[in-house]
């Protein structure tokens, strides 16, 4: 037994690394030579380890008990006990889900909001035909003029015009171009030139998509004009080009001047230009001309919340509309002439020549 005690002491010293290098070497040799001793070393090591582990866990538990004593368990328990109310429980358990749902909702709303407000131009698209009856209180003169309009107005026509717009001659024999929306619900259409002469017209062609209508003067009193002095420009025009328009927002022709501010129209519509030009109800259907007197577009609408943003259908689509009409009935197609007689003339002279080809259009329904 004394030997056993000595052996165990050596084993413990060996395991704790207390032996000197020589002793340790000798002992390792002994382990190699004697499997019984080796086994005792391993067994003792394992046992001591579990003993040490026991000690560690015990002290850990003591420390934790100590820490536990510092916690106000009763108070916490009271606070965290499952609440009798179902809703409070539901809220506690699903706090994170609710938070995620709420933030998702917010994000969605925000993105929809920003998409709507970023990709579209502010404001709405407002067509520029004149609702005469609604503004007659403000413009008594206008109503009077309309009621007693030129001597050529047929007698049967008692009511005043409902809508007014502008149009311009495409050919000498009485084809006019205007906006489809001007003549949309028309029962009858009368056109009036700058001299105040009124003629009955019919709608010869409608293009809803591009908002173009072609009118034909069918009145007997109409005498063919000279060829229109302007020409339709086929290719598109650059930004910044100075442009002007003639129209009938009131009973006399009015000049509006501006520049092309964008090559696309409302909401990026590529069939239109955006033009910075002052226009008013009644300007719809008016010609948009560049400095040389080429017709580059057809005034259609304006943005109602943006200052100076008007839209004009590109002249290319007027040409397309014109092509839809049998060419023999168009007569001499002066608008397609290569030569532009207005070129080089001053603005005043141009307007002087164009003026009689721009018509006020009155629509009754």
């Amino acid at each position: 037994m004394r030997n056993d005690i000595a052996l165990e002491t050596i084993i413990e010293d060996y395991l704790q690394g207390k032996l000197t290098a020589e002793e340790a070497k000798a002992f390792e040799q002994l382990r190699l030579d004697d499997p019984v001793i080796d086994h005792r070393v391993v067994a003792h090591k394992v046992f001591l380890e579990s003993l040490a582990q026991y000690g560690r866990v015990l002290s850990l538990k003591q420390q934790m008990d100590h820490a536990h004593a510092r916690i106000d368990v009763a108070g916490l328990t009271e606070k965290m006990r499952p609440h009798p109310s179902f809703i409070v429980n539901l809220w506690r358990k699903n706090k994170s889900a609710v938070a995620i749902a709420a933030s998702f909702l917010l994000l969605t709303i925000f993105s929809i909001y920003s998409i709507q407000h970023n990709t579209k131009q502010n404001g709405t698209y407002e067509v520029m035909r004149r609702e005469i009856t609604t503004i007659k209180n403000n413009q008594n003169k206008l109503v009077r003029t309309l009621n007693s309009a030129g001597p050529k107005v047929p007698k049967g026509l008692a009511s005043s015009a409902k809508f007014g717009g502008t149009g311009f001659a495409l050919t000498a024999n009485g084809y006019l171009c205007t906006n489809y929306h001007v003549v949309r619900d028309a029962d009858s259409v009368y056109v009036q030139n700058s001299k105040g002469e009124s003629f009955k017209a019919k709608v010869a062609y409608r293009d809803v998509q591009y908002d173009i209508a072609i009118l034909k003067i069918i009145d007997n009193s109409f005498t063919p004009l000279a060829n229109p002095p302007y020409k339709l420009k086929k290719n598109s025009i650059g930004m910044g080009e100075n442009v002007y328009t003639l129209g009938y927002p009131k009973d006399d022709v009015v000049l509006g001047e501006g520049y092309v501010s964008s090559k696309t129209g409302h909401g990026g519509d590529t069939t239109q230009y955006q033009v910075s030009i002052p226009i008013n109800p009644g300007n719809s259907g008016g010609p948009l001309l560049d400095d040389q007197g080429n017709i580059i577009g057809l005034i259609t609408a304006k943005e109602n919340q943006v200052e100076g943003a008007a839209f004009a259908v590109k002249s290319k689509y007027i040409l397309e509309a014109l092509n839809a009409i049998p060419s023999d009935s168009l007569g001499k197609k002066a608008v397609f002439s290569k030569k532009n007689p207005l070129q080089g003339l001053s603005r005043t002279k141009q307007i002087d020549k164009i003026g009689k080809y721009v018509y006020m259009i009155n629509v009754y329904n």
Partner: protein
Amino acid sequence: MSNKLSSSVPTDREVVLGILNNSEDALNRLYIGYFPMVLQFILNNNGDEDDAKDVYQEAIIVLYNKIRSGDFELSSKLKTYIYSVCRRIWLKKLTQQSKKINNLSDLEDVVAVEVDLEQHEEKELQFEKMGSALVSLGEPCKTIIQDFYINNLSMQDICEKFGYTNTDNVKTQKYKCLQRLKKLFFQS
């Protein structure tokens, strides 16, 4: 001020370093920091505060063993880990008590901790065996063994504490005690 600081929840890194350095302060802060979470979980799932204490302390032991074993990798947040371990332990206890569990209401994320818990159960078994072996060992053997192997007192200290005449007597006594303890431990 210092009291306030020490009661705040420590960072995961602080805890790991603290455990490796045997820092009692780190343990206290860890313990106090995450106890409310576990308490709430147990209270919400048919338990009381004593259950919470038991489960929580077991979980901390699991964490300690894992960190001390050296192959600890923080693959999740410490909070999540502790919660997962507690959840698993509590689930097991509930099944043992054959209490009906419809749905464990979860309050936090959960990570897989099965492997860690298997190792822990083994160790827990050993711990209990050692505990009962020490109890049945009786005095003064129990204290001598604890003082020497756990509290790391020297032979000289033990000799004085128990009034032995010389350290050889203590050595003999300790040897006898250890032999008996081994027997008790491996028998049970």
